């Protein structure tokens, strides 16, 4: 038995908002793979929970009229990986969430839970940062659209107001059209592990495929929350696809990152692999875009 004070099951988004407003101390539980573990460990023992697990309307991926990819917040990682829209437009997100935990965790864990947790190591988060994703929040006052970079406030804290829940994550068309991306999770094991560092890159090449038209790079575990490396991005835009440009890009990421020493890895090691992963992930994204890197 879990040490739960009370469980309120929401049948719809409106129902969830009502329950969250009536029980301000209650925590939202989606898939439960984080919340129930925290209850078991005692950190959330005695909590009141609002379960949104039953709101099937929040599951699935679709293309909106303006071409934005809409991912319902309760869509599980395995369903994201298998989704044809994701595979066609932003396959890197499916690959990134396929590195989370193990198969059973990927069947229950949701992208909404992964991001609302506010942890820097979330494998979906760095890729969503790199795609300039928009978080859709629904609350008593209606809907809000918040860029994911503003949604993360500090370690473990996201911009979720009283009575609100996350209902979707949207990737605008201009963010993904013409881009290809690659994610690398550096961890100690192939499965059931938390990233030592995660690096997600996407790139858009010039028409002749010889130069970088645009590039975005984001990290997990390189700071208290997932973070972009804007200085490296800006310096690389317009540059030709050469080994030298890639090396400089990789070195430049350190100007924006602030990893820490932890029992998992030292700051120095994280800085080292941040550079190595930047180069490898960009090279792979270039290859996926049909580009070639010159000496």
């Amino acid at each position, binding site marked *: *038995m*879990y*040490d*739960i*004070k*009370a*469980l309120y*099951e929401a049948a719809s988004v409106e129902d969830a908002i009502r329950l969250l407003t009536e029980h301000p101390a209650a925590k939202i*539980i989606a898939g*439960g*793979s984080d919340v*129930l*573990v925290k209850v*078991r*460990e005692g950190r959330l023992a005695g909590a009141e929970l609002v*379960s949104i*697990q*039953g709101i099937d309307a929040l599951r699935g991926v679709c293309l909106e009229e303006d071409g934005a990819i809409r991912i319902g917040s309760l869509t599980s990682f*395995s369903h994201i990986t298998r989704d044809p829209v994701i595979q066609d437009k932003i396959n890197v997100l499916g690959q990134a969430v396929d590195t989370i*935990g*193990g*198969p*059973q*965790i990927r*069947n*229950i864990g949701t992208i909404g839970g992964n991001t609302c947790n506010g942890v820097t190591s979330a494998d979906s988060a760095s890729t969503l940062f790199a795609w300039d994703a928009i978080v859709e929040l629904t609350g008593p006052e209606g809907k809000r659209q918040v860029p994911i970079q503003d949604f993360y406030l500090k370690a473990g804290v996201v911009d979720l107001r009283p009575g609100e829940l996350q209902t979707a994550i949207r990737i605008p068309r201009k963010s993904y059209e013409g881009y290809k991306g690659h994610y690398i999770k550096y961890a100690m094991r*192939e*499965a*059931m592990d938390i990233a030592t560092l995660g690096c997600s890159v996407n790139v858009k090449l010039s028409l002749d495929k010889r130069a970088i038209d645009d590039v975005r790079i984001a990290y997990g575990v390189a700071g208290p929350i997932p973070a972009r490396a804007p200085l490296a991005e800006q310096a690389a835009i317009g540059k030709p696809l050469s080994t030298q440009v890639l090396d400089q890009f990789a070195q430049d990421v350190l100007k924006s990152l602030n990893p820490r020493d932890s029992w998992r890895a030292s700051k120095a090691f994280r800085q080292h692999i941040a550079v190595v992963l930047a180069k490898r992930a960009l090279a792979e994204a270039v290859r996926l875009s049909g580009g070639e890197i010159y000496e």
Partner: protein
Amino acid sequence: MSKQYKLVTCTINGKLMEKMVDVRASLTDMLRDDFRLTSVKKGCEVGECGACNVIIDGECFNSCIYLAVWAEGKNILTLEGLANPDGTLSDIQQAFIDEAAVQCGFCTPGFIMSAVEILETGRELSDEEIRKRLSGHLCRCTGYENIFRAVKKTMLRRLGKEKEAEAV
């Protein structure tokens, strides 16, 4: 606060069941305590070891981090649902015995349910893919090789590749 219960109706191993469950119960608690399905093991109870793995609507879930009330309307399969009506074992269970993929046996039901999910795809998976799909389970006895072999052999046999299965 007074205890909170909810009536849950679901299909377990092919039979429609109805039960009043405590909302604090995990699906592991419900399957073991209310239905005596003790193949569902209590291991880590935080979703890391896979000993409590069951199939819900065709997908594998660690039942220890799944609330019992979420089972409403679901179709649940546990290891007890695999054997044939006459009591003989299913091919995958027999393969675990033949390949000595069982030592203490605690992880076995969870592993077999993941194997069932693999076999139900009806596809021939690469070695790497089989290993990845089994990676949500911990076994402290066998070293995994015999488990991997039992799953691969059964997959090949179901695809009619008896000769390849023998060579595994």
